[in-house]
């Protein structure tokens, strides 16, 4: 009796699976035709655009950005954008803004499911560029750019394309903004002045200790150093320590900036790292860092409330003190570089926009992106909204956001093409974009600028090392644990995870790359 029932159950299950597989093969077919048709539509729309620029079919461009929750008044702004876009390229744009922190997961689902979309934000820190290129999620853009993106081609320096290339092809458009990497520190001006601390004199971490000590002693309720798991002293002083990352910020393997031999070293084994941990641990034990730093995602609210005296900035850009002032709750800040400026692959690809393989009209998406570079009105509407509704213009030409107006991407201008198109916010000097371009042009190139690492041969080792790093790095780098005990444990686990093989592969690929590029 039991057996027969069981076998019936199995039969039914099998039946269901069969049904499922039928549906599936249906999916498979429709999938493949969709892919095929999208490929042909690329070609046809390309031709069409080339021949009859004026008579483009209406098209909606779906664009995913990593810019916090969808703005309440996005529809009004989209309408304004669309009015302009319909005239020029007969397109409309549908912007989907995903909350920070959810973006990676969201994009993974979107991409894995083969959902149709056109553009998305991608970088080395969000919606991982290399991963997506390796998995075939993005379209190669070389031809499309040549045909449809004259302004972008004109505007972006060649070095930007070099950084974005993977195996010789461009898969994303670097947004034009600050590219040079300069580690900096941000200090509240009132406190620095009060304790006679001159941030310009800082050359090493130890120089900060006396200031922290004073703040700790003299200011109740103020955290001397706003370390969180998103703001780690080590990661934000990598260039100051003279390193450039190879396969990701927390991936073992760096080269020394200025090392012509480009020898790969494990940064976690370096003296610099050990020394850094020692100082940070000392800060932690003395209470200069919050005790729960290792579980704290950010201190933005505390900064706004004036409860943080100092933070490592990460990357300096001209005019950063204006933004810093806003972040530190209206207190003036010193934002001071503490390292030389370098152009790194990682700092250029930190903000890019890619075209999806699932786009039904990639040409139009590229045309649209070209317009963002070309047309200042378009860019500024996207970033600041509509004049007198979302922002107002001051007599000196600077603009000011209107509070609670329902639209404000003024903090995310670097996600939209060419930031140098942006109007100036109140308090920003009118030369900051020129200064930024100057800084980009004058920065020294890293010896491996333009190199991109192919993780495929050491996929397992890389994943294992990543998982070890994610377990140890935060607690070590916030000073939450004793480095004398935990660092050897960490390094040992990295060894077991295969760090040596990873480093060797990195070295091999860099050597090969140098040979190929005649460096």
């Amino acid at each position, binding site marked *: 009796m039991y057996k027969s029932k069981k076998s019936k159950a199995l039969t039914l299950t099998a039946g269901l699976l069969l*049904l499922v597989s039928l549906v599936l093969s249906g999916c*498979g077919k429709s999938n493949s035709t969709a892919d095929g048709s999208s490929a042909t539509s690329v070609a046809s729309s390309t031709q069409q655009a080339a021949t009859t620029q004026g008579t483009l079919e209406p098209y909606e461009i779906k664009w995913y950005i990593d810019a916090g929750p969808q703005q309440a008044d996005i529809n009004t702004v989209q309408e304004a954008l669309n009015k302009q876009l319909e005239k020029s390229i007969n397109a409309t744009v549908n912007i989907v803004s995903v909350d920070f922190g959810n973006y*990676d997961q969201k994009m*993974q689902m979107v991409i894995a499911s083969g959902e149709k979309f056109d553009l998305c934000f991608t970088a080395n820190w969000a919606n991982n560029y290399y991963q997506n290129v390796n*998995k075939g999620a993005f379209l190669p853009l070389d031809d499309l750019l040549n045909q449809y993106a004259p302004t972008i081609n004109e505007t972006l320096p060649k070095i930007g394309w070099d950084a974005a290339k993977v195996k010789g092809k461009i898969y994303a458009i670097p947004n034009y903004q600050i590219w040079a990497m300069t580690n900096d520190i941000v200090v509240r001006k009132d406190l620095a002045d009060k304790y006679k601390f001159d941030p310009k004199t800082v050359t090493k971490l130890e120089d900060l200790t006396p200031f922290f000590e004073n703040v700790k002693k003299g200011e109740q309720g103020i955290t001397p150093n706003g370390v969180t798991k998103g703001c780690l002293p080590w990661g934000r002083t990598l260039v100051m320590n003279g390193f450039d990352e190879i396969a990701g910020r927390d991936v073992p393997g760096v080269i020394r900036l200025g090392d012509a031999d480009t020898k790969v070293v494990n940064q976690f084994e370096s003296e610099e790292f050990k020394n850094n941990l020692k100082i940070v641990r000392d800060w932690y034990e003395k209470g200069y860092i919050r005790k729960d730093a290792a579980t704290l995602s950010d201190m933005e609210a505390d900064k706004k409330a004036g409860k943080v005296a100092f933070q490592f900035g990460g990357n300096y850009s001209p005019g950063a003190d204006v933004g810093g002032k806003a972040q530190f709750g209206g207190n003036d800040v010193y934002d001071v570089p503490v390292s030389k400026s370098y152009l790194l692959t990682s700092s250029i690809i930190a903000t890019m926009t890619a075209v999806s393989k699932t786009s039904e009209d990639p040409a139009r998406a590229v045309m649209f992106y070209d317009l963002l570079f070309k047309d200042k009105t378009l860019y500024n509407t996207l970033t600041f909204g509509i004049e007198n509704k979302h922002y107002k213009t001051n007599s000196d030409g600077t603009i000011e956001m209107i509070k609670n107006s329902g639209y404000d991407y003024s903090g995310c201008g670097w996600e939209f093409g060419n930031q140098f198109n942006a109007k100036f916010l109140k308090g920003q000097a009118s030369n900051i974009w020129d200064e930024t371009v100057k800084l980009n042009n004058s920065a020294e190139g890293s010896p491996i600028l333009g190199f991109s690492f192919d993780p495929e041969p050491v996929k397992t080792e890389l*994943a294992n090392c990543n998982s070890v790093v994610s377990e140890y790095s*935060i607690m070590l780098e916030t000073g939450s644990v004793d480095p004398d005990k935990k660092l050897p444990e960490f390094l040992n686990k990295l060894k077991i995870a295969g760090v040596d093989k990873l480093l060797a592969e990195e070295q091999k690929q860099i050597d090969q790359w140098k040979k190929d590029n005649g460096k």
Partner: protein
Amino acid sequence: MFKKNELIKDTIKNKGLLLLAIPGLLFLLAFNYLPMVGIIIPFKSIDFAKGIIRSDWVGFNNFKFLFSSGDIIRATTNTIISNLLFIIATLIISMAFAIMLFDMSRKAVKVYQTALFVPYFLSWVVISYIVYIFLNPDMGILNQFLKAFGSEAINWYSEPKHWRFILVIASLWKNAGYYTILYYTALMGIDSSYFEASDIDGATKFQQIKSISIPLLAPLIMLLVLLQIGRIFFSDFGLFYFIPKDSGALYPVTDVIDTFVFRSLKNNPDLGMTAAAGLYQTAVGFILVIVVNKITKKLNPDLAMF
């Protein structure tokens, strides 16, 4: 053949019953059975350009990749240990509470039930904040106590040794009320004449519990335990992710398969490996349920699920 006919006949006879089941079955088909095609993903090297269906087959590579690090073993151990602790602790505590409640006036039941059940309404995100109120290294209540008694404050989020216990407490805090109500409702369903008869026989409270309440609750206990064992390889993601605040120092005890997968996916997005981990969880859980059910059937056929 004859049996098949009989089944068909029976089904036709009871077509009204089948009709009742159909909407539910359709939902199952749409949201549970159709997605089962995903079983192929772990055996593929996903290339988005080709789509999932046409990506290349890679055999067991994704599984090799998954097991190449010791972490999955640690996560498996943590998952099983934590879940076993949860199952045992909830079973004992909520059985005990249900039996205690059963003995009380309606008014008292209402009060206790409300109190016990309240935490169940809170999401893990909220509970993580409650736990944080207690464990915050600077302002937390436990450290306030420790300091008041002259002990050293503990940095809870970097001391793994306390966390098995903390997780069990958190799980109990949230779930004990739920299970208590389940058992209590079942007790209410027991024919009161059993208790009346035993009262007349002069049975003590504990005799009643032992010989009436527990045996009559056994099917429900079995059902719940079996269901939980089937999911022993899965864990309540919110509990293990939000409560320890994803603190790396705690991974040695708090990292379970689900959080491991989530983290791997974040650090190194790889659908194939994630899916492999999912299939590993599912397959082992499936086998466990079959085994437990077999054993149950041997011991007491009435208690088996199928």
